[in-house]
C-alpha cells in the first residue's frame, strides 16, 4: 500500500450506482467506485467503454441519469472546492497552433501569481518555455504544460483523460516519471487510458470499465487474472467485483 493511503480518511471520490446513456444506448450501468487519498489509479477499458464519460461524471461535466457522486465527502451538487481538483482533458496536447497563447499565460489561468506560475513550470521542467507559444512546442512538452496548469491550483486530486495520445515513446516515459514523482509527493492521480501496457507498470490500482465495472484490482491481480483478455477479448463475462468498499 502506498504510504499516503489512509484507510480512515474519507474517499476523495465516491460514485454510487451510476447509470448513464444516450437515448436507449447505455454507456454506463451500476457503477460503484471509491477513490482513496494517495491512490494512483488507472481507469482502463476499450474505446467506447465509457471510461471518459465516467471521468466527466466525476467532474460534473456530465450528469448521470441515476446515482450519486461525492467529492471529498461532499455531494457533487454542493461541492465548491474545485481548486482541489486538477483536470487534463483528452487531446489537450493536440492543440492547433493558431491559438496565440504562451505557456505562461496558460499557467496563469489557474495560478495565483507570477511566482507560482514559474514555480509550477519549474516543477515540470518547463520554466524556460514560459514565453513560448504553446503551438511551438512538441506534444510531450505541451502535455507537461497542461500538467503544470492542472498543478498550479495546488490540487489534491489529478484526473487525466488519455494523456499520452499522440506523444512519442521517450516523452511518454518522461511523462510517467513525472506523474510518479507527483504521486510520491502525495498527489492522488486517476489516469484514463485504453493502453494497458504502460498503465499496468505505472499505477497502484486498476479499475476496468466496459459499461459496467469489470474489475478493481492491483496491477499484479490484473495480469494474473487475465483481465486484459477479458476486457478486450470477445469472451467478456461477469466478474466478481473486488472493490474494498463494495
Amino acid at each position: 500500500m502506498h504510504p499516503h493511503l489512509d484507510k480512515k480518511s474519507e474517499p476523495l471520490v465516491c460514485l454510487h450506482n451510476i447509470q448513464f446513456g444516450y437515448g436507449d444506448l447505455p454507456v454506463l450501468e451500476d457503477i460503484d467506485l471509491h477513490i482513496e487519498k494517495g491512490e494512483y489509479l488507472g481507469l482502463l477499458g476499450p474505446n467506447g467503454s465509457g471510461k471518459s464519460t465516467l471521468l466527466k461524471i466525476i467532474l460534473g461535466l456530465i450528469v448521470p441519469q441515476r446515482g450519486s457522486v461525492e467529492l471529498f465527502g461532499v455531494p457533487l451538487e454542493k461541492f465548491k472546492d474545485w481548486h482541489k481538483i486538477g483536470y487534463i482533458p483528452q487531446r489537450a496536447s493536440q492543440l492547433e497552433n493558431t491559438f496565440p497563447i504562451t505557456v505562461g499565460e496558460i499557467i496563469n489561468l489557474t495560478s495565483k501569481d507570477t511566482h507560482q506560475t514559474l514555480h509550477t513550470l519549474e516543477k515540470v521542467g518547463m520554466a524556460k518555455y514560459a514565453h513560448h507559444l504553446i503551438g511551438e512546442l512538441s506534444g510531450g512538452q505541451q502535455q507537461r504544460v497542461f500538467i503544470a496548469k492542472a498543478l498550479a491550483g495546488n490540487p489534491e486530486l489529478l484526473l487525466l483523460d488519455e494523456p499520452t495520445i499522440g506523444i512519442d515513446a521517450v516523452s511518454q516515459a518522461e511523462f510517467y516519471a513525472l506523474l510518479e514523482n507527483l504521486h510520491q509527493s502525495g498527489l492522488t492521480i486517476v489516469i484514463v487510458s485504453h493502453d494497458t501496457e504502460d498503465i499496468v507498470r505505472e499505477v497502484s490500482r486498476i479499475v476496468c470499465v466496459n459499461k459496467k465495472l469489470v474489475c478493481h484490482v492491483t496491477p499484479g491481480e490484473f495480469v494474473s487474472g487475465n483481465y486484459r483478455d477479458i476486457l478486450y477479448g470477445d469472451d467478456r463475462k461477469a466478474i466478481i467485483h473486488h472493490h474494498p468498499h463494495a
Partner: protein
Amino acid sequence: MLDIFTYSFMIKAFIAGIVIGTIAPLIGTFLVARRFSLIADTLGHISLAGIALGLLLHINPILTALVASIATAILVDKIRQNKHISGESALAMLLSGGLALAIVLIGLAQGFNVDLLSYLFGSITTVTSFDLYLIVPLGLLIIAVVYIFYKQFLYIAFDEEGARVSGINVKILNILLMVLTATAVSLSIRIIGSLLIGALLVIPVTTASQISKSFRQSLLLSVIISLVSVIAGLFASFYLNLPAGGAIVLISLIIFAFTYISKLK
C-alpha cells in the same frame, strides 16, 4: 487643423469609430479563439431586421437593433447547448432568417431608401448625437467588462471544460460574451454597416494572431490594427467619397495581406 475636423458629423463619426474600432476586435479575439466568429455576421443580419423595425415604427434604429441582436444572441446560446442542432447550422439559419425578416419589414415600410443603405454599408454622415450617447457609454462598459472578466473569457476560449471544472460559471459568462457581441455589433452598424461588421470583428484579430507572441499581445495588436483601419477608412470615406464600411474593411484586408506575405518571406 485639417478641414475634415471642421465638420461636426465627422467629429461624431471619429468618436463613434474609435469606440467601435476598440470594442469590435476586443470581442472578436475571444470569438475567433472559440471558432465562433460567424456569430458576428449572424447578429449583423439580425440587427438589420431590428433597424428595419425601428425605421418602420419610427424608433431610433440602433435601439431596436440592440434589442433584436441581444435577444438573438441569448437564443443562439440556448441553441448551442441543444445537442440536436449544431451551432454552425443554427447561426446559418438565423443569419438567413434575419435577412429575410429585414426584407419583409423593408417591404412593409414601402421600399428601400438612402437611410437604409447607410445601415447596410455604413456611412460617416449618419451618426447622431443620440447614437453617441449610446455608443460611448456602452462601448466603455464593454471595455470594462472584458477587462474584469479577461481571465475567465480566456480560460473558456482556451479550454471550456477545464474552465467549468475550475469552478468558473461558464454558462453565465457565455451568455455575457454573447450579449457583449450583440451590443458591439449593433453599435458598429452606423459606421461599418450590418453586412460588413463581421469583418471588423475577425480581420484585425486574424492579422494580429499571425504576428503576436502572446494572447495579450494579440488582443492589443488587433485593437491597434482595427483603429488604424477605422481612422484611415474614415479619412478615405471623407476625401474619396467612399462608403465608410467598405473603405474600413478593405484597409484592414490590405494590412492582413501585408502581414501574411511578410510572414511567408
